[in-house]
């Protein structure tokens, strides 16, 4: 496998909540074309019933017992994201309000992605997208809404991506299909832990045995 492709696969695996591949605003204009006609989110349609054109869509909701503004503010400061997104190593400010995300790849290769805010509604929604010419095209969106009663905030993160074609594409797609979903789920759980409990649970007995330490080793 050529080096470039290898990095693409790795970065795609690393993206998690960030999502990967060119998706041209699918998140902003997302509409079910066919599939479930009930009140459930399109992403919960039975496999093969929902269609988002050529895009794969994964998403997950979590309820967090903290105020909406607080959660929004923490997420909006992208430099906080590596605290709970396992495969985002660092986020640093770029030019014109852009951000540069360093994402974990395989065998110690890291990939930089430059992103811009695609849409922002303070306290409610953040969508981001990689700038043109980025090595990887990504798009992600997170929404915050008040949960019923005293339950805090419902946070929904959605990723859409266009699985590439070809043999390599299928390999990548396989990783896309599994990994972004699993990674998003884990990242959201860690976000909830950090916001509610103030720390991320680990069952390690020693500092060297934590998941984080083992990934760094």
């Amino acid at each position, binding site marked *: 496998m050529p080096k470039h492709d290898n990095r693409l696969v790795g970065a795609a695996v690393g993206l998690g909540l960030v999502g990967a591949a060119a998706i041209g605003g699918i998140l902003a204009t997302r509409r079910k074309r066919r599939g479930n006609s009930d009140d459930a989110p399109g992403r919960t349609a039975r496999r093969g019933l929902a269609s988002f054109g050529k895009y794969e869509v994964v998403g997950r909701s979590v309820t967090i*017992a903290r105020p909406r503004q607080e959660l929004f503010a923490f997420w909006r400061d992208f430099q906080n994201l590596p605290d709970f997104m396992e495969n985002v190593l660092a986020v640093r400010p770029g030019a014109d309000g852009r951000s540069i995300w360093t994402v974990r790849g395989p065998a110690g290769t890291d990939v930089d992605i430059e992103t811009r805010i695609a849409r922002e509604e303070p306290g409610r929604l953040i969508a981001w997208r990689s700038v043109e010419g980025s090595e990887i095209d990504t798009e992600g969106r997170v929404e915050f809404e008040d949960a019923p009663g005293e339950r805090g905030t419902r946070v929904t993160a959605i990723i859409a991506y266009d699985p590439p074609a070809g043999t390599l594409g299928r390999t990548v797609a396989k990783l896309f299909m599994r990994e972004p979903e699993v990674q998003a789920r884990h990242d959201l759980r860690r976000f909830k832990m950090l916001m509610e409990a103030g720390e*991320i*649970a680990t*069952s390690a007995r020693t500092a060297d045995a934590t998941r984080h330490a083992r990934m760094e080793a």
Partner: protein
Amino acid sequence: MRALTWHGTHDVRVETVDDPEIINPRDAIIKVTSTAICGSDLHLYDGVIPAMRPGDVLGHEFMGEVVETGPGSTLEKGQRVVVPFTISCGRCFHCTIQQYSCCSNSNPAEKQDMSEMLYGHAMAGLFGYSHLTGGYSGGQAEYVRVPFSDIGPVVVPDHLEDDQVLFLSDILPTGWMGAENADIGPDDTVAVWGCGPVGLFAVQSALAMGAARVIAIDHYPHRLELARKLGAKIINFRQTDVREALMEMSGGIGVDAVIDAVGLEAHGFAIDNMLDIVKQKVGFGADRASALKQAILAVRKGGRVSVPGVYGGMSDKFPIGAVMEKGLQLRAGQTHVQKYTAQLLAKIEAGEIDTTFLISHHLPLDDAAEGYRNFHDKQNEWTKVILRPGMESARRSKEEERARESEHA
């Protein structure tokens, strides 16, 4: 440090492993003074609980001295604490409504997937148990890392001995919640399956809650005798037809509430129990629920079924028809330990609850494997084993003596 580690079915060993460290701000390190072997440890010993890994440190009933604290801990060095077996953050939705064993934040993110697939949701982290509940190192060790130490551990007064308060960690609140889930009223007859430690505490709790009569069911004479001493009527299921007896002892009505303190390794003679044994052996994971099945048939119409006994998988031939047609209420769950510790500590201090009557053996931690073997094989006499890391091991000192002698030789 020395710790009891799991290596497979009927294979546990005391080994030297890395000492625990403070990792998260709310952590504390406890130096263990007393730790017990629980009936649910025997389910791990028998290899019927999924997602165990070789080297896992067991033990979820423990207490000791605080020796180190993270910046977010409210404990102080030198304090004597009993630690609940449920690890709970205290701040999530479930913790704030006191469903501590349902905590959303204590089971590590990457370990929740398997439980979600199996149960629909992941439960709280537990000490010394399966990786379905986090795979946290347990308390049958010299030291333990205790997460969320500002929520769980109960500081105990010095005038109470370890043996009096140790069981606040699990079996006392588990028996208490088992009785509470049975919604006991003053005229009620309550039947308890299993006279192990949890069953015995359920008997004691049901009587404390005002049950008119408590009937305890087992087949070990000594365990039944302990239940009788607490004030229960007893049934030995090797001698007596349990369902017929319960009908006759409740004036033909059936008992008002039933408590299954047996769990997934019930003894039983029915054909389907035999099949379940085979399925457990080949890793099919069918829980042997014969005690629960019998309890559901024995309880009166409109009665209550409480299940503190441990189940982990699926059960075949579950009498769902009896549950529906008889209009039963079924309640279960890992214990919300933190909900009960303060009130139960007060009852221990006031002398209303005795926890020491069921302790049969004290052993050094180094002899823990022997403790497991006997607790498993000699259930009649070995009713509860306490391990003490600080206690001199007769076997170990003999081995050391031999080593010294051979050195000199």
